Structures are given as structure tokens and as C-alpha cells.
């Protein structure tokens, strides 16, 4: 689908310029790391070849693989059940299963520990002496899966809704079972959305620090944080962070290979498909959805409510923090969406080595832990852009650096499903390339743009490490409020900001999980 358009001419400067500028800014943290890593001379190399660096690589890779596999399995299966079958309460399950996206992963880890940890709620409830150990790989896997599988669920659900059901119906007409139709017809068509979702999951897992630290799992990010604590020498942390960048490159390469093997059969018409009758499979399906929503939404919510009840007398709703969180995140969402459009348009409409490189480079900062992004921006802003330092603008910029790929995912998946023909028609009628894009294509993908923006918004709401160091002094968000109370062990006072964070984010997840993209726009 891409090669066919390769002859459409050179990318217009009016797209290239903003895209190059954006990517150059996104690469600041990388530049900082290279400066810091090379500052140490031979020490950098020694750290790289230390035996436990290899162990760290292995354990990080294992975690990324596990979380991605679990997230894809859960995300795709729930997406299919809630868009293609007659499971009772479809909308309920679709929204409920997407909601864990609003739970910050460190809160998820706290909650899982509170529920299943030693002497946690479950143990008290069952009255048993010992439960299986939750710390380590499995605990980290569970908490990270909880906060990332909704990416796959949302992207795949949107793709399923936008898919022409004619093919699937043809398959069924030929007497195939629903499972066969899913495997041979639906799944191949979902490759791009599964790939995009898995990419977000993998990069999130690479960058996460809160979960691996609470679950005591030795991943690269934990080692990077520990090195920052050694203070004197920022070389080792920079070297390890560059290893993380290399892993990111590997993940990106895998994803683009996976995406290349896409078969596309023309846009077709998206319409409401005839749902599969689950029949006697209805009960197992219900138990499955109930299990997912129960474990990943009800358990954390129950733990938070339990903590809240324990300290209700001391609870004071942090309204100012709510407003701060909302406004900083909304600005970040808007900025990221605007910045993503030129990059996404170039990569899908003017594919060349350069435009694809630009698009991939936009991911460079995404897998870096927040502390690395924060310190790099501290360095650049304090020394070279001091009027910006510790302003809201810089904080918003940090969010864009961290989360731009999420906006890209939204815009690109929408672009892929719109197809270039309408735009070509506009050009045949005399529009210039950029004018055609902005008057025809952009309005068509606006649902995708908003979906991308909403993903960035939700991530920014939860962001902690960069927020702590880069916020204007005295600018408290819900995330910093949670940090401040949990760091002194006051979970009962952390529960309210955590629940508020979930409550104010929830409507955005509702929007994401219910959008009919792009059919709604095309038909309405």
C-alpha cells in the first residue's frame, strides 16, 4: 500500500520543516546522554562490559516480552469479544476493560501489593499464613500488563470497528468457524493496530521505573536510577540509558518488520457487522471478561477505597491539584497532536527514507525513563534557555518528548484507514498538496487526532518523575500529591488523589473506547 504512492513526488517543505524541527527537539535527551556518556572516557566502556549489564539486558528483555505478549493476548481477545460477538453487556465490558489505562502503573503496583502482597487484603480475607510471592517478575508483569494492555485493546477495537465486515462474513458464508475466520481473516487485517499497540506497550515497559522498583525487579531503568544516586558521576547512568535506546531501536525495527507484512484489500465500507452468536460459549466469555475487569480494575479500586476509608477523616480533596493536572495534560495533548500531524503525514503520504527515519526518530525519547528526560531538559533549559526553565511550557514540552509516539499512533492509524484517494481527487480538482491534505484529509482523521491527543493526555496525567523536577515551583499535580504521601507511607492520604486521578481521567477513556473511527466521520 505504501509503494504504490511512492511516486507522488517530494515531500513539501511546509511539512518537512515543522517535522524536522520537532524531531530535533525530541532528540535533545539523546544528545545529552551522548555528552554525558562520552565525558567519562574509558569508564563508559567498562560499565557496558560489566557482567551484570548483560544480566540487566536479559531481565529487561524478558519483562518487555512477557508484558507485550500478555497485553496483546488480553487486548485482542477482549476487543474481539466486545466488537464482534453478542456477549451480554458489550459496552460495559468494552469501557470497563479499557479503564485501567487511567491507573498510574506505580499506583497499580501499590494496589497489587496491598491486595496480594504479604499480609495484604487477600491474605487477611482468606486467613492463610502465606501466599505465593508477588515480588519479582510476576508482580512486575501483572502491574505493567494492567496499565498497558488497554493500549492494544483501544487501538484494536478501533481497527475492528473500522474494518469492512464483508470479508469476515464471506469467510463465515464458506462455513468457517468464528475462530477460523478470526485467525485467517480478521487477525491479518489487524496487524497494523496490534503492532502499534504492542509498540506502545513495549516502550512503556522499557521506560517504567515505578513498578520495577516497587516489585523489586532488576530492570535497566532501576539500575539507571540507582546510578543517579551515586551522584558524582553521571557517566554510568548515561551509558545504561544509551543501552535502553539501543533496545528501543530493536523494538522499533521488529515492529516495522511486522507492519511490512500487511495485506490490504482496499478500504471497503465499515458498517455494523452481524455479531457472532456465542451460544454456550457465552458463559466462559463472560467469566473471562469479568476476570479481566475484576483483576485489573476492581481490585485496585477496592484497595484504594479501603485505604480511603481508613483515613477518611484526614482526607481533603486536592482541587487545585486536579486543575493543575488537567490543564498541564490538556496543553501537552494539544501540543503533541499538533506536532504529530506533520510527522505522520510525511511518513504515510510521502514515504521515503528520510520521512520514515524522521518518524522512527520521534520514538527515541519514548523508552527513556522520566528522570533521564528530566535531567537532560534541566541541563539544556537552565544553561541555554533560562527564561523557560521551571515554567509550565517546559513541563508541557517534557510531556511531548515522552509521549509524542502515542499521538503518532492515533494519527497514523487513522491515516492508514482513510487512504489517499479522496485527497488525490481534491488534487485533481486543482488543490495544492498541502492544501488538499489540510482541507480533505485532516478533517477526515480528526477522530484519530483526538484519540492520539487523549492518549497523551492520559499519560501526562499520570507522569511523575519529569513532573517532580521540571514543574514550576509550587505547581502540584495529582501525581506529585500521590508521590508526596506514599513516600512517607501515608497510603490512606494517597488514596483520594489516586481515586480523583482515575475519576477525572475516566471520561477520556470512555471517549476512546466508544469512538467509531473512521466510519462516524465518513458517514456523518
Amino acid at each position, binding site marked *: 500500500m505504501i509503494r504504490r504512492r511512492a511516486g507522488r513526488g517530494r515531500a513539501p517543505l511546509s511539512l518537512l520543516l515543522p517535522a524536522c524541527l520537532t524531531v530535533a527537539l525530541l532528540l535533545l535527551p539523546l544528545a545529552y546522554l551522548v555528552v554525558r556518556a562520552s565525558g567519562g572516557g574509558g569508564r563508559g566502556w567498562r560499565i557496558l562490559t560489566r557482567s551484570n549489564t548483560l544480566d540487566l539486558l536479559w531481565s529487561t528483555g524478558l519483562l518487555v516480552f512477557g508484558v507485550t505478549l500478555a497485553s496483546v493476548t488480553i487486548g485482542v481477545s477482549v476487543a474481539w469479544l466486545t466488537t464482534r460477538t453478542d456477549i451480554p453487556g458489550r459496552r460495559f465490558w468494552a469501557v470497563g476493560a479499557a479503564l485501567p489505562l487511567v491507573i498510574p502503573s506505580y499506583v497499580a503496583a501499590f494496589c497489587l501489593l496491598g491486595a496480594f502482597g504479604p499480609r495484604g487484603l487477600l491474605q487477611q480475607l482468606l486467613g492463610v499464613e502465606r501466599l505465593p510471592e508477588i515480588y519479582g517478575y510476576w508482580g512486575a508483569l501483572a502491574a505493567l500488563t494492567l496499565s498497558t494492555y488497554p493500549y492494544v485493546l483501544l487501538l484494536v477495537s478501533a481497527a475492528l470497528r473500522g474494518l469492512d465486515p464483508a470479508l469476515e462474513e464471506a469467510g463465515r458464508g464458506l462455513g468457517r468457524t468464528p475462530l477460523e475466520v478470526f485467525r485467517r481473516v480478521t487477525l491479518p487485517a489487524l496487524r497494523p493496530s496490534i503492532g502499534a499497540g504492542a509498540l506502545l506497550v513495549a516502550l512503556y515497559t522499557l521506560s517504567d521505573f515505578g513498578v520495577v*522498583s516497587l516489585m523489586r525487579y532488576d530492570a535497566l531503568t532501576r539500575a539507571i536510577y540507582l546510578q543517579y*544516586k551515586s551522584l558524582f558521576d553521571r557517566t554510568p547512568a548515561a551509558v545504561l540509558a544509551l543501552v535502553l535506546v539501543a533496545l528501543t531501536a530493536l523494538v522499533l525495527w521488529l515492529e516495522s518488520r511486522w507492519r511490512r507484512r500487511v495485506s490490504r484489500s482496499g478500504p471497503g465500507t465499515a458498517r455494523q457487522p452481524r455479531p457472532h452468536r456465542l451460544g454456550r460459549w457465552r458463559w466462559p466469555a463472560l467469566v473471562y471478561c469479568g476476570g479481566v475487569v475484576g483483576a485489573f480494575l476492581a481490585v485496585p479500586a477496592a484497595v484504594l477505597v479501603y485505604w480511603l476509608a481508613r483515613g477518611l477523616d484526614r482526607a481533603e480533596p486536592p482541587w487545585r491539584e486536579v486543575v493543575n493536572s488537567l490543564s498541564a495534560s490538556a496543553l501537552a495533548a*494539544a501540543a503533541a497532536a499538533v506536532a504529530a500531524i506533520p510527522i505522520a503525514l510525511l511518513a504515510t503520504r510521502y514515504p521515503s527514507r528520510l520521512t520514515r527515519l524522521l518518524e522512527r526518530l520521534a520514538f527515541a525519547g519514548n523508552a527513556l525513563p522520566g528522570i533521564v528526560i528530566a535531567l537532560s531538559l534541566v541541563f539544556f533549559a537552565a544553561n541555554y534557555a533560562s*527564561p523557560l526553565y521551571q515554567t*509550565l511550557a517546559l513541563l508541557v514540552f517534557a510531556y511531548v518528548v515522552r509521549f509524542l509516539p502515542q499521538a503518532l499512533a492515533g494519527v497514523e492509524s487513522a491515516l492508514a484507514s482513510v487512504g489517499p484517494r479522496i485527497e488525490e481527487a481534491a488534487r485533481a480538482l486543482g488543490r495544492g498538496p498541502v492544501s488538499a491534505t489540510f482541507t480533505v484529509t485532516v478533517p477526515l482523521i480528526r477522530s484519530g487526532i483526538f484519540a492520539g491527543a487523549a492518549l497523551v493526555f492520559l499519560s501526562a496525567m499520570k507522569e511523575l518523575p519529569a513532573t517532580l523536577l521540571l514543574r514550576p515551583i509550587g505547581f502540584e499535580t495529582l501525581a506529585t500529591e500521590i508521590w508526596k504521601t506514599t513516600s512517607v507511607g501515608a497510603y490512606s492520604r494517597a488514596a483520594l488523589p489516586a481515586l480523583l486521578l482515575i475519576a477525572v481521567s475516566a471520561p477520556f477513556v470512555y471517549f476512546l473506547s466508544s469512538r467509531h473511527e473512521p466510519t462516524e466521520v465518513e458517514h456523518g
Partner: protein
Amino acid sequence: MKKLVVLLSALALAGCGGSDNNDDAAENGTTAAAGKKSGELVVYSGREEELVEPLFERFEEQTGIDVQVRYADSAELAATIAEEGDNSPADVFFAQDPGSLGAIDDQLAELPEAVLERVDEQFRDDRSRWVGTSGRARVIVYNTDELSEDDVPDSVFDLTDPVWKGKIGIAPTNASFQAFVTAMRLDAGEERTKQWLEDLKQNDPKFYEKNTPVVEATASGEIEVGLVNHYYLYLVKEELGDDAPIANKYLPGDDPGALVSVAGAGVLASAKHPDAAEQFVEFLLEDEQQRFYTDEAEEAEIPLVEGIDPKEGVPTLDELSGRGPDVDLSSFGGELEKTLELLNETGYTS
């Protein structure tokens, strides 16, 4: 979806509107930075807001100086100050541990003698760059359902006994544990420390990220003893209730497990409000603020100024003096790297 568009734009607008205030706040910092306006002070605090905010409020009330505080982890703030260099907006660095202060002591200015002399010389920097503001003793916290005080060993060296297998909790990635290991290295020597770490490892100690979870795990019975600072006991009791089955044992003699360390403060050489900064450090060492740790603060740190007793149940400086290893806190910053290497080598932080 239209509604959502409206909502998002409204939020963004609110953000722009709201950001004016925040920009004001930030600008105050920077304009003040540019034009030496007195009456302001920027503090980077590695000490938790929950614990020290009343001190800042009191300072504002007494002096009329507007205090802006950036709260984050001590080590992260030290790294931030290092990255900021001479452009740091910070006037004062108020840190959890001597290590963080020592790490950036080249960026700190010398403090006046009058301020330094408020505390014993073992609780301040050799080069006068920072001064301790409150003390914290290393203790063994233990579960009172499982153990009596006498069951708990008198020395950390006894924790390598196999009877403690699987019952010990530590926080090896936390600055306070690392300071304790540094003290052991300086006092008992590299060899003995390495041996102790290796032997302790044989006892399968449980690793936690911080002191608080160690104390919580002791209270829940997940472990029986934990190596922590003394005041976490009070924080955990605040959350779990006074009847939580935990108590501190202060180790006798010159055991490294009886180390008394400090939280402290220093004034940045690049401070834009040097006078207010010095005034603030001086303020922290006034009798009234020292009494804050005794009378008000939940966490019952130990006042460092002569003649002010800590909260009941916490040993006084006099009682603690002569105990603990004979080490120089101001060398901790420089020694940390070797400690981290040793912890890495023995498998505590990798």
C-alpha cells in the same frame, strides 16, 4: 465526540489561563533571580513536604520572606543542582543525608562560623559547606509479637547468624543504608565489611526500596527485624495505629549499626538571595525550630543543638554520644562511590 473536543479545548484554555499564575510564580523566581529583590528564597528540599512544611511556614511568618520550595528526592535534587551549574535557581539545599550535600559541596558556599557552632563538629562539614539540622540514629526495628528487646542482637554483626535467615529486611538502594555501610567500611575496614555483606546475603535478607516499607513489613510480620533509621517507626505508627507491634532497638557500643547521621542544609554559592539563605539555615538551628522535632514533628528526629531533648523514648545526643562508629560524616559524599561499588559487587544493588 464534539463534547469531548469542547471539553479538551476548554481544559487547554483553562490551562493557558491558569498558567498565568504559575508563570507568575515561576517568573517571580527568575525575575527575582535577575534583579536581586530581597524578600524571597528558593529552597530545594529533599526532605518530605509532609515532614518539614511547617518549618517553612514558620519562617515565612517570622521574616515576611516568601519561600518557594521544590520538593523531590535528595539525590535527584543533587543531580539537578549539578546539571544547573551556576544557573541554579536554588538558594538553599535542604537534604536528607550528608551524601547528597557532599556530592555538590563544590557548589556550596561557606557558612558563617556562628551558624556552624550551633552543632557539634561531628554533625557538620569539615570545609564548612553544610551543617546538620537534625539527627537520625540507625536502629534495628523489630516485631514485638515475635521478639523481645533482648532477643534482638546487640550488634549488626550478629545478624549473620543463621537463626535470622529470611527474617531480616533492608533497603540497600536507599541512601540511609548506604551511609550505614560507608560507616562500617570506615570504622571496621573494607575486608570485614565485605565479609559481613557476603555473610548477611547467605541469610536471604529481604530487600525493600525504602525504610518505610521495611518498617511496615516488620509490623506485618513479613520480617522480624529491619535495619532502618529510628524515626520511620513513628511514621508507620501514625498510619497503622499506635498498637502496631513494632519497636526500635538502639544498639549499644561502637557498633556501626549505632551510627548517628544527619539531615542538613547548605547555601549555594550561586544563590540569588544569599542573605535570606543564610538567615534560613540559621533559623533551622534556633532553639525554637530544634524543638519542633521534639514537640510537633511526627517523626521524632533528634535535635542537634545542645540542651534540647528529643521526644520521649528517643535517646538524647548525650546518651548517643560515645556510641556508634567513629566516622566523619563530611567524608560520606566522597566515600559513597566505593560503597556503591562494594554493594554492587556483593549483589545488593544489581
